[in-house]
């Protein structure tokens, strides 16, 4: 009868475990997270000899001591989920250290089969392993495999199937035996274990005894609640004391030593090394890549390439997505009559979904680049070379990548940047990186810089951008240092970083990993981002203007229109409101088709007017051709449209002021008075919470301008130059504030997803905004000291 088998893959990082997992499961796999944490959990199904096998790829770990999150997860999975068989993937080229995990798995009394992986690489390095002998010495089946070529998989699965039908290994046949004194104490503890804690039932008492002897925190806690645990814990204390006296060290270290002695003995008998000390290809590559001089140059180039690949490589796709959504938006606008519903669908939902999907190519490209760096082994070298600098600020060498992607080179994005911290294993350093990454100059802040630099520092554009890059780095590193001193104080995680041999990544590995991580983003962050973007849209649009005010605007518009129509000189072209609407439509169409006309609006006007003049019914009653110049009409028409535009701008500005966001901006004006931000700036900053580039368009609306394109905000720039109260000092204050203040909500959603806690989201919002306020105020203070005139 077919039976479902649960199989778990355990092994060291860099042992080729995931490549082997991909080779076994092919496309029938999916990735999720372990409950409550962001460590990835890959599962897959495979049919073998009529049996269904469920495979789980456990996180790569060096041991099962449960110091790190990954180690705890692996141990918990084995203890609680009880896989039928654990496949222990062992890197043949690095067998010594890989066997350490094996010794711990063997002690758990579970069915273990070893996948001796990458024997070809080992043989090239002169490491010959006698698999049969190794199997005999360890007391478990050993199957040579090659994950890259997919070799040995049938034997491995066959072995696992066979093993699953046997009894779990018995205590008497265990291969690892410690010194007599240790064994005696183990036995003494075992005899005191009357009842296993529920979670550990089915696991051998001996394993519990060893863990107790090692003073394992989890197990000790688990035992404490058990009946008659006092005598057991007393025995443990006594045993630990005796061993310490006997060996002069704590049992956990004695046992670690003993496991390595066991490994040494096994290696001696089953492994033959024919060459030694000959530099491998990998070591020769490393001589160049981490060279004292070339290393940093190559590193900077590599980081720059990752950056280019992520942002420019994905650009066509991002643009295509944006174009697609703006087309859908136009379509919806054409179908749905203007009003709140249209605005909700177009500006709320479609723009929101577009925002989520717009990030997707970016994230996919970034993960492809990062997976490539990880799989080749270069990622570890990045951490190795940069740790000296970043560690000085409480960060980790591996933080670099996240900071670069977030905008270390101006123009990144903190959303993928925060996801990039997934490559970090040190929890404290990872959290710190997540918290400071949003201070970098992401792409959305650049239009604001461009606007303000263009308006107030037109002579020093390049210098200003360079200064802003340096300032954002300085702020991020400073913030890291301060956070590390205060709320994240405590000792550094030990820096023990394996530098794996360089390898050529597999295409399948790259694609699967990139897809998995991108999909996770879409699934987990996408929905939240969509919801919040609709809420923010509502905040910036509601409540709409009170009806009487709306009526006033309509009345004013009517007055302007009737004044225009009553001008006898325009009557030849414009007789009624219908004529104006038709003319406007034709004008806009021609303008769109011709693009920006350097000679201004006049030629377009002439073309439209002539065309309409020819049309039947539009020409004057006597059928006379228009001979006189249209100059006068054009002049009047342009004066009219400018008036209408100004009125619309005013209406939008008043409307914005009336919304929740506008009211918030007004309320904030008091708070920001010391820096000199008025309600218009404040409401723009509120809008920037949705996405920083929105600051520009909201500022435009607040200043009663027609639609402001963030990429070409010339009109706004001119307006600000003329606006009283605006000066270089205020502009620079605003630049600093925008650089540092609360991350946009997409970034905050990522912070929640990656740290798992709202408290860090709140912290990130509060500390960045406080920092921004202080910096903006400092700019003003310095400006005053330098004698700038501030109104």
């Amino acid at each position: 009868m077919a039976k479902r088998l649960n199989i778990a893959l355990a092994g060291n990082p860099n042992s080729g475990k995931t490549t082997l997992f991909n080779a076994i499961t092919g496309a029938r796999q999916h990735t999720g997270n372990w409950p409550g944490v962001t460590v990835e959990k890959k599962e897959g199904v495979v049919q073998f000899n009529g049996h269904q096998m469920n495979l789980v790829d456990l996180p790569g770990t060096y041991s099962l001591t449960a110091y790190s999150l990954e180690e705890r997860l692996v141990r918990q999975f084995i203890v609680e989920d009880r896989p039928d068989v654990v496949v222990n993937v062992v890197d043949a080229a690095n067998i010594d250290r890989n066997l350490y995990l094996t010794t711990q798995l063997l002690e758990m009394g579970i069915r273990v089969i070893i996948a001796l992986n990458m024997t070809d690489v080992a043989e090239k390095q002169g490491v010959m392993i006698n698999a049969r002998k190794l199997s005999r010495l360890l007391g478990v089946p050993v199957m040579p495999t090659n994950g890259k070529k997919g070799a040995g998989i049938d034997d491995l699965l066959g072995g696992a199937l066979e093993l699953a039908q046997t009894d779990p290994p018995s205590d008497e046949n265990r291969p690892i035996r410690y010194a007599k004194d240790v064994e005696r104490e183990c036995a003494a503890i075992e005899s005191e274990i009357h009842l296993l804690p529920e979670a550990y039932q089915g696991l051998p008492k001996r394993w519990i005894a060893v863990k107790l002897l090692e003073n394992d925190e989890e197990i000790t806690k688990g035992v404490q609640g058990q009946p008659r645990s006092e005598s057991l814990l007393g025995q443990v204390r006594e045993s630990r004391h005796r061993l310490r006296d006997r060996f002069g060290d704590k049992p956990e270290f004695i046992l670690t030593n003993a496991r390595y002695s066991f490994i040494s003995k096994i290696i001696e008998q089953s492994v033959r090394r024919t060459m030694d000390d000959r530099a491998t290809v990998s070591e020769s590559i490393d001589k160049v890549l981490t060279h004292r001089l070339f290393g940093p140059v190559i590193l900077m180039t590599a980081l720059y390439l990752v950056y280019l690949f992520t942002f420019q490589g994905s650009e066509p796709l991002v643009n295509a997505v944006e174009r697609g959504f703006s087309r859908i938006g136009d379509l919806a606008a054409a179908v749905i009559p203007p009003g709140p519903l249209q605005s909700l669908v177009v500006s709320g939902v479609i723009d929101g979904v577009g925002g989520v999907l717009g990030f997707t190519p970016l994230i996919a490209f970034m993960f492809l680049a990062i997976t490539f760096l990880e799989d080749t082994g270069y990622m570890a070298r990045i951490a190795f070379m940069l740790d000296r600098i970043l560690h000085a600020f409480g960060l980790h060498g591996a933080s670099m990548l996240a900071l670069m992607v977030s905008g270390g080179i101006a123009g990144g994005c903190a959303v993928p940047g925060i996801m990039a911290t997934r490559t970090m294993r040190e929890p404290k350093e990872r959290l710190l990186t997540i918290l400071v990454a949003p201070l970098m100059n992401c792409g959305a802040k650049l239009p604001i810089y461009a606007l303000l630099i263009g308006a107030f520092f037109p002579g020093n554009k390049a210098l200003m951008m360079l200064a802003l890059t340096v300032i954002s780095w300085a702020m991020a590193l400073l913030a890291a240092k301060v956070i590390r001193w205060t709320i994240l104080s405590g000792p550094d995680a030990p820096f023990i970083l394996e530098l794996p041999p360089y390898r050529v990544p597999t295409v399948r590995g790259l694609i699967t990993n990139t897809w998995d991580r991108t999909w996770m983003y879409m699934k987990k962050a996408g929905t939240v981002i969509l919801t919040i973007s609709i809420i923010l849209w509502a905040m910036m649009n509601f409540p709409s203007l009170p009806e009487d005010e709306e009526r006033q605007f309509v009345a004013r518009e009517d007055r302007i229109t009737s004044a225009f129509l009553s001008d006898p000189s325009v009557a030849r072209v414009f007789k009624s409101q219908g004529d104006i609407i038709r003319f406007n439509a034709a004008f806009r169409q021609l303008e769109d088709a011709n693009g920006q006309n350097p000679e201004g609006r006049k030629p377009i006007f002439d073309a439209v007017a002539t065309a309409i003049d020819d049309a039947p019914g539009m020409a004057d009653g006597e059928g006379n051709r228009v001979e006189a110049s249209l100059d006068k009409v054009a002049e009047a028409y342009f004066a009219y449209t400018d008036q209408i535009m100004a009125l619309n701008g005013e209406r939008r500005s008043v409307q914005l002021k009336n919304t929740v966001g506008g009211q918030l901006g007004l309320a904030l004006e008091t708070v920001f008075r010391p820096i000199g931000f008025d309600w218009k700036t404040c409401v723009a900053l509120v809008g920037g919470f949705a996405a920083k580039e929105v600051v520009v368009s909201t500022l435009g609306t607040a200043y009663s301008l027609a639609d402001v394109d963030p990429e070409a905000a010339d009109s706004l720039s001119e307006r600000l130059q003329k606006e009283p109260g605006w000066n270089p000092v205020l502009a620079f204050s605003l630049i600093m504030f925008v650089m540092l203040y609360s991350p946009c909500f997409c970034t905050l959603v990522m912070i929640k997803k990656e740290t798992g806690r709202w408290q860090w989201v709140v912290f990130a919002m509060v500390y960045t905004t406080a920092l921004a306020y202080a910096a903006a105020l400092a700019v003003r203070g310095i400006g005053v000291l330098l004698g700038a005139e501030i109104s």
Partner: protein
Amino acid sequence: MKRIPNEEDCDFCPAFPAKECLSDNVVPLSQFKPGEKGVVFQACGDSELRLRLMEMGFVRGSEVKVVKHAPLKDPLEFVIRGYHVSLRKEEAAHILMEKPHGRFDEVT
């Protein structure tokens, strides 16, 4: 010569209750230069660091070779038990090596 980066560490270090680590027979790995080899005598320091180092193969009798510094002198790269690993000087100072004969005398 002070062998341990921070003597306070020793108070919590279970490796040498009698502080024999301060004797002249051991040299911390952090004082090794690129290209030099040695044999581990004992990893010391607080329990977590010590256990992690030992689990990565820094147990008594393991041979360690210093490969190189990072471009900014820290961290260091080592080969131990057939693989490459990087430690900061801080951590390497917690690995006490058997004193090779005839070397380090000028340092002492």
